[in-house]
């Protein structure tokens, strides 16, 4: 048997987690929304038992990672320990809230501190690393993440009412869901419009090759302009249109609000859409097209029955890039009054209420990750389907 060095990645990650657990503040308690909280170390927050349990789990991972064998069993046991750690983390917050918060103070709130975030971040990195080492399929990762996420959600909604993030959410639940749906609506409309426009443009570029360079250069140029600036530059002409064209004003077209936001989102979305559609249609192998002609297909049949299905995975990749980009840009659009989850970020920054910033930023991150993973899986499945046939 060959002697292999220890798994350095897991070793480093578990040492970082142990150091954070023992060396940094784990939670902070604030008397109300605005004042800065005071930090508490892990043993003050979770009790000695809690810290001992977490440390034992991490020491186990460290020990396993240090083993020179990289057997599947070894990796699976590390995975189990990390999942257990992630599952136990919300209960740690519960213990902290019971131990540290005075029930007489209804405004008092608990926030996760540096150690908590570091451990969470490293545990997620460890999950990614173990997934890669074990070559787990997407299915298992989705199962694990939805299990962990489900438990977190349950804890947050049932028992963690002292957590600052939960309090922010409860204080503006209706506004949150409104912003959430606005965000999704703007992203869907922008992506939908740019899919249609992108395909039309890509087909035009295929037909009139002369405009190819110019068209891509122009779309590239727009992509270079920072989002804040593009929103600003669209504002003046749109304000002029709404002031001088009665019909446009009746439609709700304004210098600020959703009009410039959607327009800018579509402009940004066009480059990835057009590029991927174009590349996708060009990438279909000429042999396949030859074979299709040989079978007696008409050009239109050949286009719709051969070229489009084969191009679909790359096209979907374009939709994925476009959607992820639009999710982030829509957050910026909140600055010009377009609503969406970004409004919590900028309001929170304005009021120095960091939990409100989190209330906006975390869902945006989650939506981006879910959309990215979902469309990525779909395109992978289509690609496999295409190669199986």
């Amino acid at each position: 048997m060959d002697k292999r060095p220890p798994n350095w990645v897991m070793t480093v990650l578990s040492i970082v987690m142990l150091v954070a657990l023992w060396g940094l503040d784990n939670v902070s308690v604030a008397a109300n929304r605005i004042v800065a909280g005071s930090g508490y170390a892990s043993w003050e927050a979770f009790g000695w038992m809690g810290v001992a349990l977490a440390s034992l789990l991490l020491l186990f991972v460290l020990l396993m990672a240090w083993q020179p064998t990289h057997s599947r069993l070894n990796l699976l046991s590390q995975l189990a320990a990390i999942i257990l750690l992630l599952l136990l983390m919300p209960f740690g917050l519960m213990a902290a809230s019971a131990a540290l918060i005075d029930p007489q103070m209804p405004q008092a709130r608990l926030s996760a501190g540096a150690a908590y975030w570091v451990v969470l971040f490293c545990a997620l990195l460890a999950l990614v690393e173990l997934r890669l080492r074990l070559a787990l399929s997407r299915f298992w990762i989705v199962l694990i993440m939805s299990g962990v996420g489900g438990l977190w959600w349950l804890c947050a909604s049932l028992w963690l009412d002292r957590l600052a993030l939960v309090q922010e959410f409860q204080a503006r639940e209706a506004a949150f869901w409104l912003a959430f749906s606005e965000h999704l609506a703007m992203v869907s409309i922008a992506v939908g419009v740019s899919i249609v426009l992108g395909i039309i443009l890509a087909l035009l570029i295929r037909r009139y090759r002369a405009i190819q360079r110019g068209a891509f250069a122009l779309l590239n140029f727009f992509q270079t302009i920072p989002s804040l600036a593009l929103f600003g530059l669209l504002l003046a002409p749109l304000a002029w249109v709404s002031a001088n064209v009665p019909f446009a004003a009746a439609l709700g077209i304004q210098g600020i609000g959703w009009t410039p936001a959607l327009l800018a989102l579509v402009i940004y979305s066009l480059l990835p859409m057009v590029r991927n559609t174009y590349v996708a249609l060009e990438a279909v192998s000429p042999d396949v097209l030859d074979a299709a002609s040989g079978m007696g297909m008409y050009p239109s049949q050949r286009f719709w029955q051969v070229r489009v299905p084969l191009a679909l995975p790359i096209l979907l990749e374009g939709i994925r890039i476009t959607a992820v980009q639009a999710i982030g840009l829509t957050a910026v659009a909140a600055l010009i009054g377009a609503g969406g989850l970004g409004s919590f970020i900028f309001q929170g920054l304005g009021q120095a209420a960091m939990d409100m910033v989190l209330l906006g930023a975390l869902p945006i991150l989650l939506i981006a990750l879910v959309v990215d993973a979902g469309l990525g899986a779909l395109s992978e499945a289509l690609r496999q389907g295409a190669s199986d046939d």
Partner: protein
Amino acid sequence: MTSRPVHPRSAYHPIQLLWPLMWLVLLVGVVLMIPHAQTLFQWLAPDARQVIYQRADFTQLLGRHLMVVGVAASITITLGVLAGVMVTRQWGRDFLPLVSQIASLGQTFPPVAVLALAVPALGFGTIPIIVALVLYGLLPIVRNTIAGLKDVDPGVVSAAYGMGMTPGQILRQVELPLAAPVILAGIRTSVTINIATAALGATVGASNLGDPIIAGIVNANNAYIVQGAMVIALLAVSIDSIFEVFQRRLRLHTP
């Protein structure tokens, strides 16, 4: 996120310097003209009492913006290329799957969200913005450094080894030059994103070209917004066109 379509290789010609020159002249021209264009901006914001952004001079704002992006970019490039080189060496190979996974997964995170998350952790001001820019800007550079180094033909590396070159020499004289175009493309993406994200830094207390835009939105003054937007857009386009020239030169010099 803003990777570009592959252009057919075109010969380098001094005329290509015209584009960046034109954008730079336009940038400087606009910055110098803004204080004197009272009438034009009055027309854009007829109700406003003051139509030229006064809180700071535009040359100053431009300088601060360039400073923040410049500092962030130099840290990012150093760290990013270093990290990319480290995980592709024999002794760092353990970290390669994780690092390349993070580099591609991390680009899913919207820059605004990264900036917003940096503030609770680091506070308001210029330093948190530089940290956020560095963290986010690292991803495209690390990813492209890894991709560029991986693409180097192993045959070339073993030939260099056979010639008696040391690993350090191989890295500096063979691998990095061959990977340079891909790395430069990553740097270009990173800097473009950073210029845009730095402007958002005005919402977290940094004073730069985003400032007039934010002030204009808050006071409903279109003139401020247009002034800030014009200068940022010109800055971004100028720097991008400079990168374009560099890339063309490099593409010409690498086989």
